[in-house]
């Protein structure tokens, strides 16, 4: 898929319209996972708008998003960046056969604060 | 060859549009000044308000060989005369029901709200209506045989 097709697919999956964005940055102002993300919510919107999807697909940012939907709730223009992040995530998952999770990475992810079940289900969902 | 023939005999419907002076007629003008094309089969009659459209005018149009009639007025709540389009809506609901009973398909009659700012909507509405009527073909009901042909 070329950039335009990728963009149209993201827009189709998310059901939102990034061209409504007025670049106010409220999404990034509200995001609790901001520091963790390589690409911040407002950048997501503008990158999708430009068709710059490849770097998003490769970035860890899409898995750092907590899907808390604070940005969706507060976006004054109903662009709803969280849905765009979710769409990119879905697109990646739908690329059948790709492996996003290596069994070897698993031990270092285990964390006292994180339910083990979450790690296991993530492994099932995102690995080959 | 056959396609050629069909094209020559392409059915061109005759459609009458009643447009209120304040919104829809202005919307039609806007469609013109924005150069938005729609087929030439529709001819517009200017009336002060959609509530000026007497059901008799519509019956007359069908009698004289019209294939479709559309009435355009201001959006509900925006009528220049405050309430005119509400009367039009009620009257036309009754009339269209009766016409349907007489065998004139519902699709041949329509009420649409087009504001003075909606040139694009006017053109789209007309194209769509013409398209619908063209698919239905010539209207043969209610014809006054004394009138023509």
């Amino acid at each position, binding site marked *: 898929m070329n950039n335009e097709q990728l963009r149209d697919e993201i827009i189709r999956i998310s059901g939102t319209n990034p061209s409504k964005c007025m670049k106010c940055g409220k999404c990034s102002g509200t995001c609790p996972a901001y520091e963790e993300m390589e690409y911040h919510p407002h950048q997501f919107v503008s990158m999708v708008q430009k068709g710059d999807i490849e770097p998003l697909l490769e970035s860890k940012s899409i898995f750092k998003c907590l899907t808390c939907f*604070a940005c969706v709730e507060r976006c*004054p223009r109903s662009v709803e960046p969280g849905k765009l992040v979710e769409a990119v995530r879905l697109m990646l998952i739908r690329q059948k056969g790709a492996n996003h999770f290596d069994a070897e990475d698993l031990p270092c992810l285990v964390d006292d604060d994180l339910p083990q079940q979450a790690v296991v289900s993530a492994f099932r969902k995102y690995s080959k | 060859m056959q396609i050629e023939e069909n094209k020559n005999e392409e059915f061109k419907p005759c459609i009458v549009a009643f447009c209120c002076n304040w919104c829809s007629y202005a919307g039609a003008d806007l469609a013109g000044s924005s150069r938005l094309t729609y087929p030439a089969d529709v001819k517009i009659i200017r009336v002060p308000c959609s509530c000026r459209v007497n059901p008799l*005018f519509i019956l007359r149009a069908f009698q004289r060989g019209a294939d479709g009639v559309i009435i355009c007025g201001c959006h509900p709540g925006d009528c220049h005369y405050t309430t005119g389009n509400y009367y039009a809506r009620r009257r036309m609901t009754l009339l269209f029901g009766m016409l349907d009973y007489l065998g004139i398909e519902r699709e041949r009659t329509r009420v649409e709200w087009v504001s003075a700012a909606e040139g694009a909507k006017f053109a789209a509405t007309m194209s769509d209506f013409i398209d619908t009527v063209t698919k239905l073909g010539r209207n043969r009901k209610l014809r006054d045989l004394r009138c023509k042909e």
Partner: protein
Amino acid sequence: MQRIGVFVCWCGSNIAATVDVKAVAEAAKGQPGVVFATDYQYMCSESGQTILKDAIKEYGLTGVVICSCSPRMHEATFRKAAESAGLNPYMVEIANIREQCSWIHKDMEVATEKAIILAKAAIAKVQLNKPLVAGESEVVKRALVIGGGIAGIQTALDIAEAGYKVDIVEKQPTIGGKMAQLDKTFPTLDCAACILTPKMVDVAAHENVTIYSYSEVVDVKGFVGNFTVQIKKKPRYINENLCTGCGACTEKCPMKKQPNEFNMGFDKRGAIYIPFAQAVPKLPVIDADACLMLKNGKCGLCSKICEAHAIDYTQKEEIIEERYGAIVVATGFNQIKPTQFEEYAYNTCPDVVTSLEYERLMNAAGPTKGHLQRPSDGQRPKTIVFIQCVGSRGDSCREKSYCSKICCMYTAKHAMLTKDHYPDTDIHVFYIDIRTPGKNFDEFYRRAVEQYGVDYIKGMVGKVYEENGKVMVQGSDLIDNKQITIAADMVVLASAVEPDPSARSLGTMLTASMDTNDFFTEAHAKLRPVESPTAGVFLSGMCQGPKDIPETVSQAGAAAVKVIGLLAKDKLKNNPCVAACNQSVCNGCSQCANVCPYGAITYVEKEIRTPEVREVRRVAEVNEAVCQGCGACTVTCPSSAMDLKGFTNRQIMAEVDAICR
């Protein structure tokens, strides 16, 4: 049989490029009644009009059809030309072959065919046209201004100066409006009270102006030149003629715990109060919900103190009826309370205020005597965050879709005034865009950045919360691509403006149209910006859309000029295309009066003489000055007695026939 002339306009190439104008003229010649047909490059030009006038005289034309642009464009032009040649102007019909033909079709054959049909329809209609004469109605030489803010005051002053009587109706106890609450005004920073209060005094003292304060418009009837308006005067419980405005009563009132609206609730007032020191009229008013005497008949302290014996607990509301020639709407605006935005913590944190509240906190006549104190603990805030576009420019149901226009400028003003008083204050402004289109406006904003060192941050605030006595503001800095958190002492929200809530019901009373945001719409966005589409109703100030003070004052002046122009006329010409009743077939059933939106139809007992009958019966009669010509009655009439002049049943049927044939 009419003698009809047909004139086909080329409109340069606008029509002639797609419509064969010669063919249209030729086809018209064959139509019944047509004695003359021609085409010309520009019918609306001076020479085009001469062709029309000459033909009317030479061929003795009794009807004219012009195939040209939309009648909304040049109908008036051609009617005037026909009239000057001695033809009744209503014998002119336009076939719209530009907007509805040449501009929308590309194929010459198709467009020409349609143009011919449109011309035939117009010819068929003009066959049945009858000369119409416009009636006249008198103009009441008095204007009503609804709203007594700066817009209303300026409009009233300008009208009064021209020598006409003006009444101002203000729903608050005093005129002055929102401007009276402001501290200083951009871009020159002169104090609002210093420039407004002299105007308030002027307008009150003007011999041509009557002020109905604490009053509301409750009913409007009539039409341009002759409105009948009912004004409800709410009871102040003060005899206006006796009261001297000394204010002794306000000091002694025991109910001193009422939130003071003028100071945005930051301090308290008594149940009897004068809104502010420079109020006009300077009369107290009793708040009936708070007054002990009015609630349970115990107290009466103010009445005992009043040396002028002006307190009157028995005062009742009063309805005043007055006639006006013109009405100016100047109902102004409100700043929304951003309670629906939980992220800004306006509901929970007292140190988060709106800009109008901040205005009172800064004002030397305000609750803190001009010393900036934060509402929670009275400390002076050292770090202040301003947030712009709160509730404006949004697309979701929480926000207004429009830009509130004044916030960029007053936020820069607030920042500078604060820095002037307390140079060590840290000021941060979160903005999306800075919009400063006005004379000396951008220079003003740049001064805030360059000279005062105000920190403008491109980005929006996502969250405001309290922590350790500080107001934490978390937002994004888009230029640095960072998320930042500022520990502030106070947050000021530049929340959106909205039309005053009273505008909606007033719009209904005036039958003046409004947009989806309840701003009044103008008759033409560019060319008639101060007139409402309803004749005789004019717009001044924020009721039409967000504006700053200079714009409001200029619009107020423009509205006044339109009113003066109307009142200067002794008579108004009416639209002659109105309903008419054929009384010989009317049976007086009243259905037409039921659907008439203007109350233009009345019933009279009249002797009816026809070849068949001779009797006295009840029949409908149309008031031609009130009728606006919508035609609702014509369709309702079961006996077809009602018809609309200029759009008669037979005329429209003739058009239908011409199109379908």
